[in-house]
């Protein structure tokens, strides 16, 4: 061994691009997007891949992505949050009550909702790190607690109904609405239409009036989360906390703080989705976000997150969500029965887990 100590490493740079790409956790999700696209290009009506068709499936996809990106970071940090879907309903209630019952302006109500959700998230986080119980069971409890509180709270806020209306009227004219609801770049699309570069209706208004804001939010979040994971010390701590909490903490990583912060972040992502959905619908109800926790976790797994933590990618979760949206909406463009969706979903999850397992063995050199 000492003889080769000072020699130049001839192996550097010889690893082919393909094998380096094979090690990226998001590879599976990107391959999945390509496969699903090819599938629908063959089977679906050509309208699916027009601009309006694409935005049509990207909208639910990016709503899911907002949750899935949070869930993926938490999973990389070694924990789960099964209360995500219930948190959407609960934060939706808090937000709606703030603007309808207390007539708060959005500039107060939105930050208050995000902070409130983060605080609730920190409760489950603290319980998990302090007791060492699996986050699976702790957040399962919160799945029911928050769903129940949403129902009870809605009845209190409305005097007996499980739906709280009047959000749209309450926020009418608020300057923050365009950032959280509707389409962005409307002027740009109108300009494109006036030049005849995008499809228009007969009266000259463009068929696509802009990019739905949730798409921009999810892209922004995916970029930010990826930056944090790959290019900041905190990102390294997240991988370390999920990979081996004892080793990480022996090396000086504040594991508990990292984990609790991730729970707070995930909850805040759920609250952001709640705000977008409530502003869009103009009301909230107790079923909001129902079973979204599973979809978010599935998207994160398709995106390359290991169930055991310490490995995964936020951008992968984003692509995982796109696969999801493409399949849900895409089936309506085909002759298939839409209920194939669930079969597809399960199959996709199974494939992703098998694939991830293979990748993990490749990375760790396990045989």
């Amino acid at each position, binding site marked *: 061994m000492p003889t*080769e100590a000072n020699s130049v490493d001839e192996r550097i740079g010889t690893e082919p691009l393909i094998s380096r790409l094979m*090690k990226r956790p998001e590879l599976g999700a990107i391959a999945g997007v390509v496969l699903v696209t090819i599938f629908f290009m063959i089977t679906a009506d050509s309208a699916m891949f027009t601009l309006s068709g694409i935005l049509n499936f990207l909208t639910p996809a990016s709503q899911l992505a907002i949750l899935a990106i949070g869930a993926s970071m938490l999973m990389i940090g070694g924990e789960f949050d099964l209360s995500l879907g219930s948190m959407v309903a609960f934060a939706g209630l808090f937000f709606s009550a703030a603007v309808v019952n207390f007539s708060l302006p959005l500039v107060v109500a939105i930050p208050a909702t995000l902070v409130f959700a983060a605080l609730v998230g920190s409760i489950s986080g603290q319980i998990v790190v302090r007791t060492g119980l699996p986050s699976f069971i702790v957040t399962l409890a919160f799945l029911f607690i928050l769903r129940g509180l949403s129902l009870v709270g809605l009845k209190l806020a409305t005097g007996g109904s499980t739906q709280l209306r009047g959000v749209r009227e309450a926020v009418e004219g608020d300057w923050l609405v365009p950032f959280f609801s509707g389409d962005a770049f409307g002027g740009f699309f109108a300009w494109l239409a006036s030049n005849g570069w995008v499809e228009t209706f007969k009266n000259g208004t463009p068929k696509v009036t802009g990019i739905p804001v949730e798409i921009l939010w999810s892209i922004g979040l995916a970029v930010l989360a990826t930056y944090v994971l*790959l290019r900041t*010390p905190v990102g*390294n701590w997240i991988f*370390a906390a999920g990979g*081996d909490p004892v080793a990480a903490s*022996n090396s000086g990583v504040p594991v508990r703080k990292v984990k609790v912060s991730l729970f707070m972040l995930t909850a805040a992502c759920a609250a952001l989705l709640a705000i977008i959905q409530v502003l869009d619908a103009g009301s909230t109800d107790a079923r909001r976000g129902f079973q979204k926790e599973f979809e978010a976790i599935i998207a994160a797994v398709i995106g390359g997150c290991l169930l055991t933590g310490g*490995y995964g990618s936020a951008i992968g979760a984003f692509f995982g969500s796109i696969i999801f949206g493409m399949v849900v909406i895409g089936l309506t463009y085909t002759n298939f029965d839409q209920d194939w969706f669930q079969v597809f979903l399960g199959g996709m999850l199974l494939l992703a887990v098998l694939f991830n397992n293979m990748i993990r063995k490749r990375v760790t050199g*396990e045989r």
Partner: protein
Amino acid sequence: MTDPIVHMENIEKHFGAVIALAGVSFDVTAGECHCLLGDNGAGKSTFIKTMSGVHKPTKGTILFEGKELKFDTPRDSMEAGIATVYQDLAMIPLMSVTRNFWMGREPTKGRGLFKRFDIDRANEITMEEMRKMGINLRGPDQAVGTLSGGERQTVAIARAVFFGAKVLILDEPTSALGVRQTSNVLATVDRVRNQGIGVVFITHNVRHAMAVGDRFTVLNRGKTLGTATKGNVTAEELQDMMAGGQELASLEGSLGGTV
């Protein structure tokens, strides 16, 4: 001989009624490898945990560079310059060598919101330090899981050395390794010693100790059975001391002296 970096005098450690250490004295100087030998249950682990600040001694003093020190937490001893590489190595297999190397102490560049992990510098230094230790990585992003046991040990040692260890405690670094990997780790120990770091090498394998040790201290039932310098002691003598002398002598005959 120069003054010791760490001098532990008459260390006693009681756990309730159990006396784990009953007056152990031990020191290590710069640039030497001091082997601490002992059979299972002899008190080796308790002793190094005292040295690295995990346990507080019941009695006795710890002098660090001549000054008396009290370690309340492992962090205190780490900051003083005592680094411990435990058997589990504190390595995360799924993470790259670079990310493991810098874990908890990442170099940054930029300020405020733009403060970020300086991955290029981290990669460069990691590759350099690994090369110095005689390990040529495929790349800095190679996962630790793909390294052999001996290479992982070396990464852990390199990390400790890079972050300014003056004393390096190695807890049974060779116990789970094959012949070739063991010799690699022993070569690493030699390299570290030549950099002027005091190495405390814990083992129950006399041959590994003889290969790199300058001095040998044997622990048995919580007591030191004396310290010998290289050349003044044979492997058999050390072996006998570790075993307490009697039983092994009678076994020796039937096993043909191979233990």
